[in-house]
């Protein structure tokens, strides 16, 4: 039997670890008839930082990792397209698009590892302490914590004061008013107590697209993959790729319902920004897209083509994928 070390930054009690990582590992163990065994190490138990996880898989420090490629901005520039504002509304479909995008126009982005899955989380949205966000103007002067480079930029264009801080500092910063709000998907809400610490939540009508999402990658050490017996390789292959990516995206967006319920139970105000009201946000946020395209051009890629490819792939898979559960409808 082969033992694989699975390493990630997610906490052992988190939904991602329990419903996605553990579920995936158990399925692989079962499909291999017990010939593949996993040792799971959540919460960076084997050292390093989340940013370094990808290199740990590349270098064979561990065998499989699940991490945020967007943490190292300059390293995977082309996949950042999925983190631009108002790209998606369905994590399952967008995860499929992300997988296909990397296979077709960004293949060498993850060439150092055996990529098992590429996925995104459900719709990101506003959570604010004292003021409900209905229009873009409502953001003026608010101190809002941004998750990624592109979204932090967008918050500035929308008139907010973007604040950069690591995710675990959100509860403290919210409770003391160091920030007035943050943008995260529902799924993350309970783990950083945003349901307790804010009163207002502003979702976007899926028809107009979600504010943003974040990309994830599950990758395996190449040499380890190549050393597997052919039938075990087949087991890994069957549990990776487009369908697995879609499944991870779907499960993660499904977990949004859990987070949303905590806010409902606390009788917080949940507002849906209509597709019409979203226009003003989009108009101001468009500059993020423009600058990203310019940045790609500078790096020697065809920025416009990459953006169009991502958009058309999201649209294509959106048509063939059922509307997402979780989020708004829960």
């Amino acid at each position, binding site marked *: 039997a082969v033992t694989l070390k699975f390493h990630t930054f997610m906490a052992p009690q988190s939904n991602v670890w329990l419903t996605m990582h553990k579920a995936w590992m158990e399925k692989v163990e079962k499909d291999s008839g017990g010939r593949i065994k996993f*040792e799971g*190490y959540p919460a960076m*138990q*084997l*050292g*390093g*930082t989340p940013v*370094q996880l990808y*290199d*740990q898989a590349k*270098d*064979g*420090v*561990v065998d499989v990792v699940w991490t945020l490629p967007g943490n190292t901005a300059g390293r995977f520039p082309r996949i950042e397209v999925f983190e631009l504002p108002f790209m998606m509304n369905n994590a399952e479909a967008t995860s499929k698009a992300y997988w296909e995008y990397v296979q077709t126009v960004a293949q060498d982005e993850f060439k150092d590892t055996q990529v098992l899955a590429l996925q995104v989380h459900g719709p990101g949205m506003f959570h604010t302490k004292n003021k409900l966000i209905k229009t873009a103007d409502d953001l003026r002067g608010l101190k809002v914590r941004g998750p990624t480079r592109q979204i932090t930029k967008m918050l500035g264009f929308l008139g907010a004061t973007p604040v950069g*801080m*690591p995710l*675990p*500092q959100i*509860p*403290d*910063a919210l*409770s*003391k*008013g*160091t920030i007035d709000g943050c943008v995260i998907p529902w799924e993350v809400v309970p783990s950083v107590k945003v349901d307790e610490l804010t009163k207002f939540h502003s979702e976007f009508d899926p028809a107009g697209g979600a504010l943003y999402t974040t990309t994830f990658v599950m990758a395996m050490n190449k040499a380890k993959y190549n050393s597997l017996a052919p039938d075990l390789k087949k087991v890994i292959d069957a549990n990776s790729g487009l369908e697995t990516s879609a499944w991870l995206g779907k499960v993660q967006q499904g977990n949004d319902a859990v987070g949303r319920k905590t806010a409902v139970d606390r009788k917080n105000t949940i507002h849906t920004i209509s597709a019409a009201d979203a226009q003003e946000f989009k108009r101001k946020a468009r500059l993020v897209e423009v600058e990203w395209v310019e940045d790609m051009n500078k790096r020697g890629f065809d920025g416009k083509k990459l953006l169009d490819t991502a958009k058309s792939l999201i649209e294509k898979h959106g048509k063939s994928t059922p509307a997402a559960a979780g989020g708004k409808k829960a």
Partner: protein
Amino acid sequence: MTPLALTALIFGIMLACMAVRIPIAVSMFAAGAIGYVMQTGWAPFSFFLNTQAFARFASYDLSVIPLFILMGHFATKGGISKSLFEFAAAVMGRMKGGLAMASLLACAAFGAISGSSVATAATITSVALPEMRRHGYSGRLATGTLAAGGTLGIQLPPSIVLVIYAILTEQNISKLFAAAIVPGIIAMIGYMIAVGLYVRLVPGHAPEVEEAPPPMTLRALMGIVPIAIIFLLVFGGIYGGFFTPTEGAAVGASTTFLTALLKGEMTLKKFKECFYGTAVSAAMIFLIFLGADLMNAALALTQVPNQLAQVVGSWGVAPLLVVVAILLFYVVLGAVMDELSMLLLTIPIFFPIIMGLDFGMPRESVAIWFGIVVLMTVGFGLIAPPVGLNVYIVNGLAKDVPMGETYRGVMPFLISDVLRTMLFLFFPIIPLWLVGFIS
């Protein structure tokens, strides 16, 4: 080799290295490296090393440590301790044992802007010890009081020990600081009571009649103003929502530096010495961090720590008994080992065990409460024989007092420590009360 035997081997190598004067950080590094390589081979370990120093050193969360250390050095060099003690003496001087109590008050005030017990003990001793001796206090009482008073540097926020606990357990630094305030004040009062009882029960250690206390001069009064401003600015800023604890450390370091500059105490030479002092303390701590990282990775690979939590959970002993056992273990280990490395090594193993037990409190409350009782134990270890760092420091500054006298002098305070720890063990509400209040 079974996982358990491997774990024992890793610890054995570390302890053997430590016993023969190999630096603690290097002992941990060596034991961790050997354990790691035995389980994975050389290649994964060597690649792990490529990034681990960066991972540990270039961390925003940990940057609060060198900043608080720098702040402590600015405060120490800034000449604020003298006026602080004059003020405390004017307040407490009239009581029997008043100057000893004033020293404790000065330690608490200095401790409220210093994160280190060493800095607090040394700074206050340099001004309070000559005064106490001049007024006829025995070497035993004077040095014992100052060694114990120095521990208020970590008992009261900011506290390097609490910062490290917060980082290891992923708890909120400002909540832990808030939780430490009431226990820190209780510690100070408990020490004062210990002084009051000691001078009455054991005659001959303090002057029978205190001289008329030094008058409350404007100078003495002005002495506490900078401390009050720095404290209010740092903690008012953190709890008022103007900045995060790390930002608070930066604000504290710059205001302390500014105060020293305004008092005319900060020469270029002293400024450089502050950097050198920070260099030695910070590098020492972070190299231990790195060594502990290797130990912890090697131990995690054995899977023993993960299982330990489940095993202890399944024993069904009273949760409080587990806490008491851990604290007793700390007292024994702390007798020979430095307290910081002890925490770095054991918290990753003990903390999951504690969190797996049911204390009838929310998880976060348990984490904070356990942090506070561990902090008490660290304070205890700093003055308890055979190796009490604070005792060494204060005794080193008191040339004419034998070490044995200082150890005798800390006894009343050790009793106070034990009683206080028991109080918090049975009444978690005391540290948790203020936390509930701020959030």
